[in-house]
């Protein structure tokens, strides 16, 4: 073994020994502090308001990839615009997150696709590539353990997923459009013509 290799092994051994010797509480505390640092949080001191037209166009371009058109539903830009405006105007922190999200999409586009183009100008396939570049850790986190994502992803990417992508997906799949995907025409919020249909299979569903 070369001298450098020996030194490395020795340092590794001593470091490990010190870690084991250290108070378990301190280690747990360190882990907690790291996770708290990485866990995305809304900035409750930031302003509320609405996105610029350009920022909104970027977000709507994201929607076309995140919640694309289905046989039953086309992408309802007006719905998402209303949702985003409502969120950014009423809940502190969301305007900042959506703005930074739009910026992140453009910056990643410049890096991985073409430095002269913005996210809105891309094809759906290219937008998917951009999202993959930002969120591969997201997939890894969901498939393995959420902590993996916390460990690997940048805080910007984590915030983007938590407060922009998840917010858009939750809005879509809580709406009638989302329920239509699983064949429901009624639920929730719109009453069924005959509420007792719920006792039978499949009767108040779309074909």
């Amino acid at each position, binding site marked *: 073994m070369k001298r450098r290799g020996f030194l490395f092994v020795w340092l590794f051994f001593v470091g490990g020994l010190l870690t084991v010797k250290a108070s378990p509480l301190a280690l747990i505390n360190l882990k907690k502090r790291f996770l708290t640092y990485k866990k995305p949080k809304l900035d409750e001191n930031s302003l509320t308001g609405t996105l610029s037209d350009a920022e909104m166009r970027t977000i709507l371009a994201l929607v076309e*990839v*995140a*919640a*694309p058109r*289905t046989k039953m539903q086309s992408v309802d830009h007006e719905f998402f615009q209303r*949702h985003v405006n*409502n969120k950014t105007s*009423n809940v502190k922190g969301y305007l900042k997150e959506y703005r930074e999200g739009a910026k992140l999409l453009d910056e990643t586009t410049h890096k991985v696709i073409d430095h002269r183009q913005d996210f809105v100008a891309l094809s759906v396939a290219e937008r*998917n590539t951009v*999202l993959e570049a930002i*969120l591969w850790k*997201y*997939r*890894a*986190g*969901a*498939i393995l353990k959420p902590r993996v994502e916390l460990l690997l992803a940048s805080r910007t990417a984590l915030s983007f997923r938590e407060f922009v*992508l*998840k917010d858009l*997906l*939750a*809005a*879509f*799949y*809580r*709406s009638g459009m*989302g*329920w239509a*995907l*699983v064949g*429901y025409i*009624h*639920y*929730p*919020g*719109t*009453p*069924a013509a005959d*509420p*007792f*249909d*719920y*006792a*039978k*299979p*499949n009767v*108040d*569903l779309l074909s």
Partner: protein
Amino acid sequence: MKSERAIADVCIIGAGLAGGILAYELGRQGVKVVVLEAGLWHNSEDKYEYMEKHLRGVRPWAPDIPERDTYTNAGEILYPLHRFRVKGVGGTTLHWSAVSLRLHETDFCMKSLYGLAEDWPLNYAELEPYYGKAEAALGVAGVADNPFASHRSSDYPLPPFPYSYANQIVKLGCDKLGITMHHVPYARNSLPSQGRPSCRAFGTCIPVCPIEAQYNAAVHVRLAEGTGNVTVHPQANAVRMNISSTGLIESVTYAKPDKSEQEQRARLFVVAAHAVESARLLLLSTSSRFPYGLANQSGLVGKYFMEHPYVIVAGRLKQSLFPYRIGFHTAETHQFVAPNRREIVGAFKFDFEGGGPGPAEIALESGHWGADLQKEIRETFGHSAQIGILLEQLPSEKNTVTLDEKVNDYFGNPVPRITYSFGEYEKNALGVARKKAEEILGALAATQIVVDQQNIGFCGHHIGTCRMGDNPETSVVNRDLRAHDVKNLFVVGSSVFVTGAAVNPSLTIAALAIRAANHILKVGGASS
């Protein structure tokens, strides 16, 4: 600056289920009542707006003054108080499940039968007629098909909601194991009744029914006002009760959102502010005569706080259950709510939920988006059978609501501190219940059976803290809910329960309130 109002016969603190019913019962008999409610009066016309908020993922009943509702936790489990309680006219029934069950007759005599906890000072037979009155008042839809229930002398006022398709599937598994499923009585109109429409399956029962097919206590508060004898003051936060030289309460001081204080005088006072705030108000009301708080000579105000721990066991079935077409479960079994050897295996009930994750929940847990996510949702949705286990919790002196002197609320008063944990009784019952639930799912050939025992949930049933009893040394109020120590003070609501049972408490709250109204009418609202 303080101002005083005219003397009322009765002042009720809290316009929830107990306070609302009591106000109506007294008002219609000509008693002049003032009701103080900490939260807002939510207009019934606005309920669609509240539903829309919920559908957009916004909490519709968020407190009007968040700093008012601060609390702290101690003990092994951090109890999530804000997840459940609502302050407002109607109280927590503004977002309840509307399950309206009677306690079992054995629940009233746990000490005598099993050597557990304490007996109630009254028994099921004494409360039975009031259960019938409560079911009529709330308009309960049900059918007497529960073979494990105690005797009843009246029919349900409305027909039951039939089993959902999902529950019919799960019933096949129960039948194989000899577990009897039955309907769930709900304070929700299965037919138009009491001027309110029948359920139209909006599916948003918790947190809001936009058409009030589901009962909430604002219904009774409105009826009470309609008598012409009841005045309701919303956003009136009772901060202390004031004692006269004779040892009777002469007034309650309440604070408005601008922090100005007013005083309401009455001949008789009723605390109906839920198990946490009722105890807190009594503890805040110290005086030279009552240095440890009002009605607290026993030292038991705030003690024996209970909840219903709740665990879901879920499994994936091959066929779709077509869930989520109404907002509530239609079947339960009470086969285990009154076990023969309760001292060995605790009581629990099963709710047969037919849900599983909806499209949004699947989306939020998934690592996918776009077409991949859509594929995942289509494949996953609708195949989950869920069995909810609601566990009885025994009263423990360790579980308490006390004042946290280090943290003050919006009005400068110490906030409630909840100290909470489970005991062996609950843990053992959970072990048995979990096994039985897994057997039911196994009988349905379910795969991927999951028990989320790490995240035990709760039902928002705050019970105990001012328990009733015949002995002033071991209880706060007597069998008529009158305080042992203060003659013109009553406490109503689930805070007076001696034990928690393994069923939802609301119907018992209503029955006890109607019974207390009778007693208050007998004493004539007088302080003698």
